[in-house]
Each structure stands twice: as structure tokens, then as C-alpha cells.
């Protein structure tokens, strides 16, 4: 499994765009990049997933450079409710039951 490295914590203010970068230097050819969000005492929630270039949904954008050794989760115009832990996961699509390993996530604090 590709090891991921993220900043331990980040601070932001309401209305700003937040970019969280994840390094995954040993990503394999068939690995996907997935981001989850977790609020205190709640289960992680899937945010976005991508393989290359750029993926956008109603919540976030995911930017993946050509070498795929890093990825950046972009949260537009954050609000106080975006304060959470964000996890970057890298792994291949499985035949079922592929263990999704959570590393140390990024604790985002959004201030008023």
C-alpha cells in the first residue's frame, strides 16, 4: 500500500479556499486516490476520488499532477462546519474487502 503524508493540521478562515496536499511518492499504477472527511464522534465520510488530472464534485475538487506522486484536495469557500479531519488514502480497486488504511489525517480548523 502506498504510504501517504499530509500536514498534521491547518487553520483557515470562513470564506477562504483551503488546499490540503497529500504526498504519495510510491503510488502504484492502478492506485486510486480517495479523500474522506471525519467529524468528531462520527464515521469518516467519502468526499472525492480520482485517478489523474482533475475531479470536481459538489463538495470539493481533487487535483492530481501527471506524475501522481501527490494530490491536492481543494475546498472552496470553507465554513465553520468544514472543521474536521481530512484523510488521504491511496490504494487499488479491490476484488472485494480491500482494506482501506487510514493514515494520519489533516486536522482543519476553520475560524470565524
Amino acid at each position: 500500500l502506498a504510504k501517504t503524508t499530509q500536514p498534521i493540521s491547518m487553520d483557515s478562515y470562513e470564506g477562504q479556499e483551503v488546499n490540503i496536499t497529500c504526498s504519495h511518492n510510491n503510488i502504484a499504477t492502478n492506485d486510486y486516490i480517495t479523500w474522506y472527511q471525519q467529524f468528531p464522534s462520527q464515521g469518516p465520510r467519502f468526499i472525492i476520488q480520482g485517478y489523474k488530472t482533475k475531479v470536481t464534485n459538489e463538495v470539493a475538487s481533487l487535483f492530481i499532477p501527471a506524475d501522481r506522486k501527490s494530490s491536492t484536495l481543494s475546498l472552496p469557500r470553507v465554513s465553520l462546519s468544514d472543521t474536521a479531519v481530512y484523510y488521504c488514502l491511496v490504494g487499488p480497486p479491490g476484488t472485494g474487502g480491500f482494506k482501506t488504511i487510514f493514515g494520519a489525517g489533516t486536522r482543519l480548523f476553520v475560524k470565524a
Partner: protein
Amino acid sequence: AAGVIQSPRHLIKEKRETATLKCYPIPRHDTVYWYQQGPGQDPQFLISFYEKMQSDKGSIPDRFSAQQFSDYHSELNMSSLELGDSALYFCASSLGQGAEKLFFGSGTQLSVL
């Protein structure tokens, strides 16, 4: 839309007792995962099942066991409970094929006194 259901929501046990946590996956999901998350910690993968068979194993103590039943629900059985077992236990489910997105339940908060 139906989500992953876990029961009980909270559980208080004494040391050396046993506990059973239940997980009901999203309908048609064939894969179930169990995670343990201690206070201030990141989720730790315990075990997973695909089509009722154990598919992968993580840092699950020998005192714990789990299974997935014919209706795809899963149970995590924990024996000889220790104080250090106090944690949030999450269950997640997914469709087994293809790039997997996990859908998590709200968790069971286990407190061992």
C-alpha cells in the same frame, strides 16, 4: 437513502466481560469493514469480509472475532475486555467490485470500566 446501521450506539462493559457489536450494511453491499478509533487517534483497520468470507485482517486482537452472515450483516465479538478496548468502533460497507468507496456507520462507543 439507507445507510450503514450499527448497534448499539453506546455500550458500557466491565473488564473481562464480553461484547457484541452489530453492523447492517447498505442494501446490496457485499463487503463489510471494521475499524477501531481510540480517543484522538486515527481509525485503525481491524478486519473485513467479502461475500461472507474474511477478506483481510488488520490489527485485530486475538480476543476479538467477527463474521459476516448470510444476510450480509456482520458482528464483532470481543471477549476478555480490557480498559484499552474503550474506543469508537466503526463499521463500513461497500460494493466489492471496482474502486471502492466506503460508507461508514455512526459507530458504537464502547466504554470498558
